């Protein structure tokens, strides 16, 4: 047999559902080994550092949210979107439960917190487009966003899961508008060129990993719960939104980057460029390498 292909994979260690669980499956099972890989797993903290690791050629594949793929392409880093992990939960424009605001258009003259550079950036602007005098501000992390919202320093905040579901369940926050956050696996072009055929093998293994996850939910969610200290039940609840979560057969697992997802990323690309956040509106479609 051929020597196993070395593959270095970065995934978010906490704070992003699905990516974290699938990453842990890749790390703790021998699925990739069976597919001819010698994997090295890096649990990283945020999209910024994963992007940096990818462009520095310290990792080959990162698992992250759509906005990062758009940015990588927009800045000219040659990379492929090789799989979708499906929905990682929701992201939502929220207010405090006792706030009088019911709809986004009531945010006139109000302050909305988000995190620039993440997937929370675009919806914050898009969903408040046309509301006069709305002020969009950036925070360093979710903790800061919640602190600001809780202490009434801002009127609304973009949040994502699991805090979103957690806060809503506990009755702290109310959702004004939400949409699923979609996750993507990105490979550097270098990796694909260095290892012909590896992408296909990886995609196969990746699909198996997702399958392992959804068929061993309890075990995997427990792993994740131990690391993140997020309640196991909450993880399960948030994960339910994922399209693969209840699949019972490997063939039913869908890791393709769907045309709708591509459209969404295109929209993001155009949006970022229109707001002068990126310089280029990248060609998304040609950078997508869906499994055969």
């Amino acid at each position: 047999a051929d020597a196993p292909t070395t593959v270095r994979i970065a995934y978010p260690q906490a704070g992003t559902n699905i990516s974290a669980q699938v990453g842990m499956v890749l790390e703790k099972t021998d699925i990739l080994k069976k597919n001819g890989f010698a994997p090295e797993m890096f649990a990283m903290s945020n999209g910024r550092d994963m992007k940096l690791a990818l462009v520095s050629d310290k990792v080959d594949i990162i698992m992250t949210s759509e906005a990062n793929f758009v940015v990588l392409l927009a800045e000219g880093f040659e990379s492929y979107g090789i799989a979708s992990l499906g929905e990682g939960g929701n992201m939502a424009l929220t207010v405090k439960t006792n706030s009088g605001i019911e709809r986004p258009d009531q945010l006139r003259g109000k302050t909305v917190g988000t995190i620039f550079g993440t997937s929370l950036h675009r919806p914050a602007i898009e969903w408040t487009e046309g509301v006069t005098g709305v002020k969009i501000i950036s925070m360093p992390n979710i903790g800061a966003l919640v602190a600001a919202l809780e202490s009434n320093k801002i009127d609304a905040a973009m949040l994502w899961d699991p805090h979103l579901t957690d806060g809503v369940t506990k009755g702290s926050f109310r959702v004004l508008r939400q949409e699923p956050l979609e996750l993507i696996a990105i490979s550097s072009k270098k990796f694909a060129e260095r290892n012909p055929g590896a992408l296909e093998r990886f995609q196969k293994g990746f699909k198996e990993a997702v399958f392992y996850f959804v068929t061993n939910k309890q075990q995997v969610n427990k792993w994740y719960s131990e690391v993140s200290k997020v309640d196991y039940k909450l993880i399960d609840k948030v994960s339910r939104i994922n399209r693969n979560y209840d699949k019972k057969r490997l063939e039913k697992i869908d890791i393709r980057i769907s045309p709708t997802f591509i459209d969404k990323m295109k929209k993001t690309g155009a949006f970022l460029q229109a707001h002068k956040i990126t310089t280029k509106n990248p060609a998304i479609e040609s950078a997508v390498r869906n499994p055969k």
Partner: protein
Amino acid sequence: MFSPFVIALLLWGGLSAAGKINPFILPPPISVLRALVEALASGELLQGTISSLGRVGTGFGISLITAIPLGVLVGSSPGVRNFVAPLLNFLRPIPPLAWIPLAILWFGIGNGPSYFLTMIASFFPILTNTITGVENVSKQHLAVAHCFQASRTSILWDIIIPSSLPMLISGVRTGFGFAWMAVVAAEMIATRSGLGYLIYTSQDLLKTDRVLVGMLVIGLIGMLADTLLVWLHKRLVHWV
């Protein structure tokens, strides 16, 4: 005088041209220059510098006027030292990130937290050095002052401050450096201007050339401030 810069620049340019440096991490000098020109032309750089200067200046200024008096107090009174030193030593290593939620709670969003974080960062070097400086004032010179029944203010201004000046200025230099370091973390909180803002947004967007422009300006300001402080030191501590 600037030769290490010249060497660094040549190395950087040469290696970049030879394709030895990943341009996503360290773009060639020419693209940094281009980014610099663009940022200058759009007025964004000037405005950012002014914003950050304002934030750093305020935070650092608050540090100066709190850390130095506190340091003198702690350094000259064992009672005060025993009371507050444990708390100060406890707070010293707490990272800025950990302060952020409290900063928002106390100072809202806007410039408040920036002032607070740059203040926290520059506070401790100034404080520690002031305390040490004051504690190391010559016992003999103090005895002379007591012998002449100098007033407390006179002892402060005529003995303690001049004696501890070298240490104090050294702390101020370090503190100013750290205030700038902190401004990046600070400008993540609800600001949309400033060199820190420029750096961290550009970093998220992989615009490394713009990151470097921000670093360049921060570095230059630091150098300038330091030159000023060294000059001040030479003027004030002329007797050694």
